[in-house]
Structures are given as C-alpha cells and as structure tokens.
C-alpha cells in the first residue's frame, strides 16, 4: 500500500533545480582540536543528487562518510565549499530532512506511535492530521498493532523500521541514513534492504545512505559515491545501471558483481582489507 494521507503542503522550493536537489561542491571539513594538529576529515568533495534519487556514500571507516551526512543534516558545519539542499545553503538544523541512525534510537519511555510522532511533537505540527499518516507508515512497514508497545518489546529489525517511519512522518524532502542496518544480522539486513527499496519507491523521497557494505550500496543505489580515508576524498562516482525494481537475485548477476568488484578495487589498492 502507499501512504495516501498527505501532510499539509510545506514550503515549495520553486527555484530549486530538481537535478541538483543536493549540491555539494569543493567541500572541506577540518577538525581543529585545541591541543593537537588539525585533522582533515573531508577534502574536495563534490557531487549532486537529483530529486527522488537514491545515492550511497561508501567507504571504509574513517573516510568521512558519516561526517558528510551530518553536514547534509546541518548537525555539524562545513569548513569551506558549498553544500546546498533544495536550493538553499545548509546552515544548521533543518526541518526538511529525516534522519535514520545506526541504532534505532527510539526513546524507551515513549510508545512506538509516540516515537514515530516525535518530529510532529518537536516541530509543533498538527498532531491529529499527522497521526493518521504515522499509522499508515507503521502499516506500510508491517508494524500495525505495535503502535502502543514500547521499544524494548520489539526486535532490532522492528525497532529500525519504526525509526524509518519516524524519519518519514513529517514528510521531509530528503531521507539521510547513517548505516541504518549495520547493527542487524545478515538475513534481517537483506530483508530491510528490500523494505527500504519499497518504501523509497512508494514515498518518492530522495535518499542519501551511508554504508560500509559495497554490495548493499550497489543493490540499493542509483549512484554510489566511493570515498577513501585520511583525508576523506572521493575516488569515484559510479552510476549503477541495473534494472528496477530489484530483487535479491540481482546480486548474483554478473553486472552487479562487476560493480562490486569495480568499487572494491579502490580499497584493495589502498590496502584496506574489506
């Protein structure tokens, strides 16, 4: 099913170019600890994301992919360069993004529905109106009947699905996901990947996903931004030209295997075992 309850129409970004919905240009991030030498976390990053596109940032630990995502979310400031979202420079927290974290990060004292409604609560939106949408989202991810349970009563996969509902409830333009399935076991993870593709198809959101799993990035994305560590740089931007909708069998295909090998090559060359 699809989510039919549309939230009250938000801000329209008429000036924004749908082909450059997210625009990163020559972006640097340098951490300057007080008592030690500066650390270059990101250097010369540049890519664009079309509206409705699924883009993954992939790379080993320390390549700055999470830092990049937090800059997109406005949680940390960039040092120099351009970072625009929907035609506006990103300056601080914003309300047109939804974020999914590695841990589901549900508040244990709230029920599942109350957790999903957290963005509505925080942003003082019309609770009655969004409640119907929250229930539809929960139904979409197969959590109907669990809305009055507390997070500890749910399995890890179920908690993460509730976290995705929370990120979608206020109808953000962009979904930012920081290794959302990293804490799940392999089978749950495959299932959640299929779920995510379905949610993406039905909601039409722009998704930027951070992962250290190359096959996951290939399976999910339209494009993959490949990053290397110390300092975090982009080494390649790979268009994933595989048919949609995608099924798990796709990963056994030669085409998918070729993409995985092509991306992995960068890390083998860098001596990163993965």
């Amino acid at each position, binding site marked *: 099913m699809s989510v039919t309850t549309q939230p009250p129409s938000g801000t329209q970004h008429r000036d924004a170019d749908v082909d450059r919905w997210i625009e990163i240009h020559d972006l640097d991030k340098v951490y300057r600890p007080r008592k030690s030498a500066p650390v270059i976390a990101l250097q010369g990053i540049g890519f664009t994301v079309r509206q409705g596109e699924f883009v993954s940032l992939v790379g080993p630990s320390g390549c700055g992919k999470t830092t990049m995502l937090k800059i997109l979310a406005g949680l940390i400031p960039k040092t120099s360069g351009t970072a625009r979202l929907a035609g506006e420079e990103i300056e601080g927290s*914003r309300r047109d993004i939804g974020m999914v974290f590695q841990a589901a990060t549900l508040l*244990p004292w709230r029920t599942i529905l109350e957790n999903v409604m957290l963005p509505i609560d925080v942003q003082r939106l019309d609770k009655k109106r969004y409640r119907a949408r929250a229930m539809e989202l929960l139904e979409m991810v197969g959590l109907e009947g669990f809305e009055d349970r507390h997070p500890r009563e749910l399995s890890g996969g179920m908690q993460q699905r509730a976290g995705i509902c929370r990120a979608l409830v206020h109808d953000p333009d962009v979904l930012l996901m920081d290794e959302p399935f990293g804490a799940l*076991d392999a089978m749950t993870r495959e299932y959640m990947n299929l779920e995510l593709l379905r949610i993406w198809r039905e909601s039409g959101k722009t998704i930027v996903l951070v992962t250290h799993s190359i096959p996951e990035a290939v399976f999910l994305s339209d494009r993959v931004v490949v990053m290397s560590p110390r300092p975090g740089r982009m080494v390649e931007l790979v268009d994933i030209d595989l048919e949609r909708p995608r099924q798990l069998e796709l990963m056994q295909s030669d085409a998918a295997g070729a993409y995985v090998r092509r991306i992995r090559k960068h890390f083998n060359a860098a001596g990163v075992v993965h």
Partner: protein
Amino acid sequence: MSVAPPQPATDVDQAPAPARSRFDLRDRPELALVPVSFILIVLAWEYGVRLLDVPSFVLPPPSAIWESLVNQLQTPRFWNNLWVTTQEIIAGYLLGVTTAFLLGIAVVQSRIVEKTVFPYVVAFQTVPKIALAPLFVIWFGFGLTSKILIAALVSFFPMLINVIEGLRSADQDQIELMRSLDASKRQIFFRVQLPNSMPFVFAGLDIGIVFAIIGAVVAEWVGARAGLGYQLLQYIYDFNIAGLFAVLVVLAVMGLVAHSFIRLLQRRFAGWTETERTVGA
C-alpha cells in the same frame, strides 16, 4: 543509556514472547525466602537468648521487644514522638531533594553555575554532615528546625549527584536525533535529558529518604525535647533495651514504607526504568 539491551533479531516478524506473570514464585523466590528466613531468625534469637541465659539488658528476646512495642503503641507519648520525627523527616527530605534537583539541573544546564558551585559541593561532600548536628542545634534551637535542616542536608548530596549524573547520562544519539529534528535546547531537556535521568533521580530519592531518617534521628540525639531519636536516648538512660529495640523496629518499618512508596512512584511514573542504577551515596 541503554535501558533495553539490543535484542538479537533472528526473525524480523517474530514479536518477543509476552512477559510472564509477575507473581510466579519460581521467578521471585524472595516472596517465600524473606518470610521464612525472618521466622527462622526470630526463633533462633528467642531460644538462643533463653538457652544461653543472656541478660535482657544486653539482648532482650523478640517476645520482650514485641511486648514493649505493643505497650508503647498504646501511649500518646509514642504517637507524639512518631509525629514529630515524621514531620522532621518529610519536611527535611522534601527540602533536601527539591533543592538538589533544581541545583542539579542548573549545574548541568549552565557552565558558570557548574564551575562556581561544584568546588563547594565536592569540598562539602567530604565533611561528615551528621557532625554538623550539634552546630545546627546551637544555631536553630531544640525544635524542629535544626532536625529538618540536618535531614535536608544529608538527603541533599546523594540526590544532587544522582541528578547531575542522570542528566549527563543522556544518550548522545538521542540528543543528535533531537538536533536533527531542529529541536530547541528546552525540548531536548524535557524530552530526552529529563526522562533519561529518571533511573538516577529515583535512586537518589531512594537513598535520600533513608539518609533523611538517619539525619533526623541523630539530630534528635544531639538535642531535642521529643521524637523517636529522643525516645531512643531515654530508653538507653533507663537501660530499657527492649524499648530501644522496639523503637528501632518502628524506624525500620518507616524506612521500608518510605522505600516502597518511592518504588511505587517509580513504577507509576518511570515504568521503563527496568534496571536500577545508583551513583555513590
């Protein structure tokens, strides 16, 4: 914080088993063990004292303590003493924990308050607060005020430290989540930091009430005209050890009732706090 440990998800669609009934004796053996051990201890005490012919001014048998307790309960003086001490405990406790709660919030929210107040707190903590009781009696007299202030002072510190620790224990991911939703500092406080601190706050309340009882009783020893602590001293002077034990029983029951009341509040208002955590008393 992690109240609920991450659960292994073997099957995404499998809901965890429903919790078992609360009153299964196999799950809660203490429901049987506590009364049984209590009876055994009382019996051993009663017959041990008789067999070994221990003088009753050293250790009276439980039967004598019980008898004294029943007699005391029939005197208006006992009820007056109980009322005086209860007032001291409750007023002192509320004063102590409320002040500690508000100061704890101020310390966590403001760096200036933290830097200014904390050195005093740390320095004061090493002072045995009970040792201030004689001073307080000199300053505030033999009445309720000096007892209330001592009870407040001794319950203040465990509460303060738990509140600070609890507010600081807020999960960084939860705070980042709130920031990603463009939440204000105030919203982060009320929706994440304050609820997160509840296990600590209740631990502080729990330790605090026990400390308040000790504080009130000890303050009465130093100088008072009424109260259970005052009564204790009278019995010691009279060598009425059974009477002394009876008052101790009353104090123990007061402590148990207060502790249970706080646990009840915790279950009612912070039911998600399954595991208890405590920071140094």
